[in-house]
């Protein structure tokens, strides 16, 4: 099976005095569903940042989607990100844009034709049950609805990898379940690799998953 993420002796830190991730060795196979857990401040989000290139590795090797992340150029980084779907706890939707345009963002960036993009966006908004709200702006929606918009945006361009940073951290139980279902659907139906950073793994997961835990800078797989 292809490895979509490969980490060898990966070390991450924001400054020289404090190492967040220390010589982590792990790999994630294409099409798998992965949870990364750990206590607050353990380095879960830091590790995720390195996966979408917001933080450069200090040492070691990190390959994401076949792209070497060490000293990556902005052109290569843009190319990689055009094949990733990222979901954040605080949604990161563009407030000035309506829902439809927010979901369309990855398609605009990838240069899809307008009519193709519009069909894809309508399909996704129907999928996340927000097709009747496409003209609304993010701040007119509830937290759960905003996260569904973020999910639709993450899926818009059929990414090879979805990276989700505590996607249900701000949501109630019902909305959280909707998001888990969407992530599971992306993994099972579209065969997209999903990496989720979270405090708690939901009990009723319907897909097999890998679980990595971060403790004291070490990343290890929980079996």
């Amino acid at each position, binding site marked *: 099976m292809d490895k979509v993420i490969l980490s060898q002796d990966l070390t991450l830190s924001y400054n020289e005095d404090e190492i967040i991730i220390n010589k982590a060795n792990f790999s994630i196979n294409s099409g798998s569903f992965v949870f990364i857990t750990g206590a607050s401040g353990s380095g879960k989000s830091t590790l995720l*940042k390195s996966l*979408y290139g*917001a933080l450069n590795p200090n040492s070691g090797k990190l390959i994401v989607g076949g792209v070497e992340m060490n000293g990556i150029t*902005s*052109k290569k*980084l*843009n*190319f*990689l*990100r*055009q*094949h*990733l779907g*990222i979901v954040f706890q605080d949604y*990161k*939707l*563009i*407030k*000035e844009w309506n829902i439809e345009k927010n979901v369309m*963002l*990855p398609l*605009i*960036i*990838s240069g899809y034709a307008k009519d193709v993009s519009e069909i894809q966006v309508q399909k996704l908004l129907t999928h996340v049950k927000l097709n009747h709200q496409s003209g609304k702006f993010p701040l007119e929606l509830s937290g759960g609805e905003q996260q569904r918009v973020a999910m639709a*945006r993450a899926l818009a361009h059929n990414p090879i990898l979805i990276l989700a940073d505590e996607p249900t951290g701000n949501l109630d139980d019902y909305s959280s379940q909707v998001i888990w279902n969407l992530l599971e659907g992306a993994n099972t139906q579209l065969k997209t690799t999903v990496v989720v950073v979270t405090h708690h793994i939901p009990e009723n997961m319907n897909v097999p998953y890998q679980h990595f835990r971060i403790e004291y800078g070490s990343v290890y797989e929980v079996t």
Partner: protein
Amino acid sequence: MKSLKNHLSLVIALFTILFTIQTFVIVNKAITAYEEELKSNYSIVVVSMKKMDIEKFQKLDNSITKMSQIEPDNVLKKLEQDLKKKDIALIKLTLPKFYKLELSIYPTPDQIKSISKNIRRDSSVKRVVDFAKNHDKVYKLLLLFKSVTLVFAFSIFAVTSLLILKEMRIWQFKHTERMAIMALFGAPVWLRSAVLFRLAIVDAIVSSLLVSTTFLILSTDGWINAELKNIGIEIEVFAIFQDGALLFAVAFALSIALASMIVLGHKEEV
């Protein structure tokens, strides 16, 4: 309404700068037109012991364009009754040569001093009459007005630049989040900044159109033209293509510089 607010502060700032620039352009045009008129009436008289020609004068000062010799016949006619023809011919031979010089420019008092000094470098030149004392008072007043306008324009430019700088910070704050989100999905810099550049270009067009319209109205209104005619000046207050292009170029350059500063100063925050 929100979109209008986004544009208004930059449009007002650009309008102020462009208005000042066009005011300066008009003052400059008026002075140039007045200089042209004065230039045709101005000349320097040179008394030389030897015969001179235009090339010699131009070597001394290249602003000299025309030379004509002043014949002393009129003066000598008065002496014809008292002197013999032979004596008059002798006087004529020993008299110095008088030349009237015309210039390519209407000189400022300082330029007059410099031209006189240059002509005097020739040892055969005995006297230069530059009529500096009769230098036109209206022209001096216009030069003073030009200097005042220039100082005024610089002050406006400095103050408005500060306003633009403040506006720039607001823009930077407003757009940082959007640009960071677009970067997360792999948008290249030009796409992330497209909104800013569009805003900058639209504001440049709007402000230059507003200033152009204002000066077009002023140029068709009789008041300015009448005032200028009073001091003997006839100019085109606003030349649509020339002045319009200048205003747009300034507005465009300024607003693009502003947008570029924001883009270059932007740091990706995740």
